[in-house]
C-alpha cells in the first residue's frame, strides 16, 4: 500500500490554504457527482436496456393483440389479453397451482433446512463432514439434479426398487398427475435444503452462547430452548431465507421443461413454464407478454420484502 505512509500529511494539506474553502467544497461535490454518474453509467445502462426496456416492452406487447402467423401488425386492444387470461380456467388453475406450490414448498424447505441446521450445530461428531455432505446436492446445477431424479424416479428406477424391497408398491412419480408436482418438489428440495441450511447455520452460530447457558440454568429442555431462543433469535435469517427461496421457486422452469413438460394433464404447469409455452410453443407473443407481466408483478412484491430485509441488515454489517 503506497497510500498508507502518506496519511500523516492529511492535517497539513487540508488546513485552510490559498484557495477559499466554500467554492472548493462545491466543486468537489460536483466532481463527485460527475464521477458517480460515470461509475454508475454501465450498471444503469445495463438495467435500462436489460431490465426496464423488456419490462416496458412486455407491458406494451400485453396491451396489443397479434394475429396468427404474424403477417399483420398487432393492434392495440387495451386490457383484453388480461381479461381473456383471467376468464380462462386453465390460466387461473396455473396461477392457483403456482401459489399452492409455493405455499407448500417454501415453508417446507425452510423448516427442514432449519431442523438440519440445528442438528449439525449441536454437539455431534464430525459436524463439518455432515454439513458438507448435506450441502453437496446444492453444488449440482439444476439440469444435473433433474437428470439424477429423472432417472432415479423412473418406474423401474432405484427409488421404486427401494420401495419394493421395503414391501411397498412401485409409484408412478412423474407419470402420474397426482405425484408429478410432488416429485418436482423433491428435485428442488434435494438441492435447496442444503443451500438454505448454510444461511441458517451462520445465523445460529451468531446467537450468543449466553442465551443457551441461561436456558440451561433455567432447566429448559431442548424443545423449549428451540422455540424460546433459537427461533426468535433466528427470525431475520429465517425470513430472509423464506423470501429468497420463494423468489427462486416462483420462476422454476428447468425441471418442468426437462422432466414433465407441464404434464401429466397440466399438473406441473406453473406460471413461468406457461409463459414460455404460450410464447414459443403456441406462438402467442402478446398473450405470453401478459402472462409475464402478471408473473413479474407478483415477483416484485416478494423482491421488495427481500430488499427491506437486506437493508435492515446494513448497520450491523457495515460496522467492523
Amino acid at each position, binding site marked *: *500500500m*503506497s*497510500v498508507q505512509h*502518506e*496519511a500523516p500529511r492529511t492535517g497539513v494539506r*487540508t488546513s485552510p490554504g490559498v484557495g477559499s474553502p466554500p467554492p472548493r467544497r462545491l466543486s468537489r461535490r460536483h466532481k463527485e*457527482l460527475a*464521477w*458517480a454518474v460515470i461509475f*454508475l453509467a*454501465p*450498471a444503469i445502462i*445495463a*438495467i435500462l436496456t*436489460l*431490465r426496464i*426496456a*423488456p419490462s416496458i*416492452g*412486455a407491458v406494451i406487447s400485453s396491451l396489443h393483440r397479434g394475429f396468427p402467423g404474424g403477417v399483420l401488425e398487432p393492434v392495440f386492444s387495451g386490457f383484453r389479453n388480461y381479461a381473456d387470461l383471467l376468464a380462462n380456467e386453465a390460466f387461473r388453475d396455473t396461477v392457483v397451482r403456482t401459489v399452492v406450490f409455493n405455499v407448500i414448498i417454501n415453508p417446507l424447505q425452510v423448516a427442514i433446512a432449519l431442523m438440519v441446521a440445528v*442438528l*449439525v450445530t*449441536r*454437539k*455431534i*461428531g464430525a*459436524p463439518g*463432514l455432515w454439513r458438507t455432505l*448435506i450441502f*453437496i446436492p446444492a453444488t*449440482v446445477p*439444476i439440469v*444435473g439434479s433433474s437428470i*439424477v431424479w429423472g*432417472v432415479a424416479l423412473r418406474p*423401474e428406477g*432405484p427409488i421404486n*426398487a*427401494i420401495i*419394493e424391497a421395503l414391501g411397498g408398491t412401485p409409484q408412478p412419480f412423474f407419470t402420474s398427475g397426482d405425484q408429478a408436482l410432488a416429485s418436482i418438489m423433491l428435485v428442488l428440495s*434435494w438441492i435447496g*435444503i442444503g443451500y438454505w441450511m448454510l444461511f441458517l447455520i451462520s445465523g445460529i452460530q451468531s446467537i450468543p452462547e449466553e442465551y443457551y447457558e441461561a436456558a440451561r440454568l433455567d432447566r429448559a429442555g431442548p424443545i423449549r430452548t428451540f422455540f424460546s431462543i433459537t427461533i426468535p433469535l433466528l427470525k431475520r435469517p429465517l425470513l430472509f431465507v423464506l423470501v429468497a427461496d420463494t*423468489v*427462486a421457486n416462483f*420462476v422454476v*422452469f*428447468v425441471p418442468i*421443461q*426437462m422432466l414433465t413438460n407441464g404434464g401429466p394433464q397440466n399438473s406441473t404447469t406453473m406460471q*413461468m413454464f406457461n*409463459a414460455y409455452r404460450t410464447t414459443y410453443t403456441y406462438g402467442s407473443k402478446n398473450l405470453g407478454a401478459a402472462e*409475464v407481466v402478471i408473473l413479474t408483478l407478483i*415477483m416484485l412484491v416478494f*423482491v421488495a420484502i427481500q*430488499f427491506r430485509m*437486506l*437493508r435492515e441488515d446494513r448497520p450491523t*454489517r*457495515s460496522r*467492523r
Partner: protein
Amino acid sequence: MTATTTRLRRGRSERRSVALTILAVLVAAVFALPALWLLLGSVRPSSEIFGSLSPLSWRILVPSSVSLDNYVTLLTGSFGRALGVSFLVCALTVAVGVIVCALAAYALAVLQFRGRGAVFAFVVISFMVPFEAIAIPLSQLFTSWGLTNTIMGLVLPGIGNGLAIFNLRQHFLAVPTSYREAATIDGASEPRVLWSVYWPLGGSALANSALLIFLGQWTAYLWPLLVVSESRLQVAPVALSRTFGEHTFDYGQNFAGAVVLSVVPAVMMFILQRSFGGLSLATGEK
C-alpha cells in the same frame, strides 16, 4: 450437587450426542447418496445403472468395473464444444461484470451525492427481480437488436448482479475513509483511488462477486435456450438437457455431464478461496 449427579448428567449428554451424531449421519446419507449414485453411474456402463435394481442389491453402489468411457465419449462429442462455449461466456461475463459491479459499488459506497440511497435501492431491486421473469420479453428485444446467436447475446444479461453490487458496497463501506482522503490529497483521481486503494482491498468481496457472476452464467439455462438456436453456440447445460431422455442407454453419459457441470463451480470456488480468502482489512488503519 455431588460428583455422581454431574457424572450422570455427563453420561446422559454423551449418549444424546451419540444419538444426534447417528441422526446426522442418516440425514447426510439421504442427501449424499443420490450424489454418490450419480458419480458412480458416470463411471460405469449405462446398462449397469438399472441392472442392479431388481432384486435390489449392494451392487447399486458398487460398480463391477470403473471406466472413464462415458466422459471420453461425452467430451469428444457436442458436449465438449458446448463446455468450451460455456467457459468462454463465463470468462467474458466475469471480466466485464466484476468491473461494472465494482464501479457501481464504489459510487454507491464512497462518493457522496444526493439521491444515493434511492439509486442504490433502484440498482439492487432491479437486479433482484429474477432474470427469468423478463427473459422472454428480453429475448424478443435481442432478436430485434440482432443479438440472437451471438456470444454477446449470451454474455450481456449476466454482467450486472445486484447481490454482487450489494456485497461489494458493504465491503467498500468498511474501508477507512482516511485511505481515500490521503490518496485524494496526493492528487489521485477517483478511478485511481478505486483501482489502487479499494480494488486491492476488495479481496474476498471481489472473489465472491466473481463467483456469483460465474455461477449465474454457468447454470444459465432458460436464457441460452431462448437466445441461441445454432448448435455451435450451445452452452453446456442446454446441450446436456438436449441429450437427456433421447436414448435410455445414454444415462451414463448424462450422469457424466451432470458431474462435469457440478465439479467446475466447486473447483472455481476452491481456486477463488485459495487466492483471495486470506485478505483482511483489520490491520490497515493506524
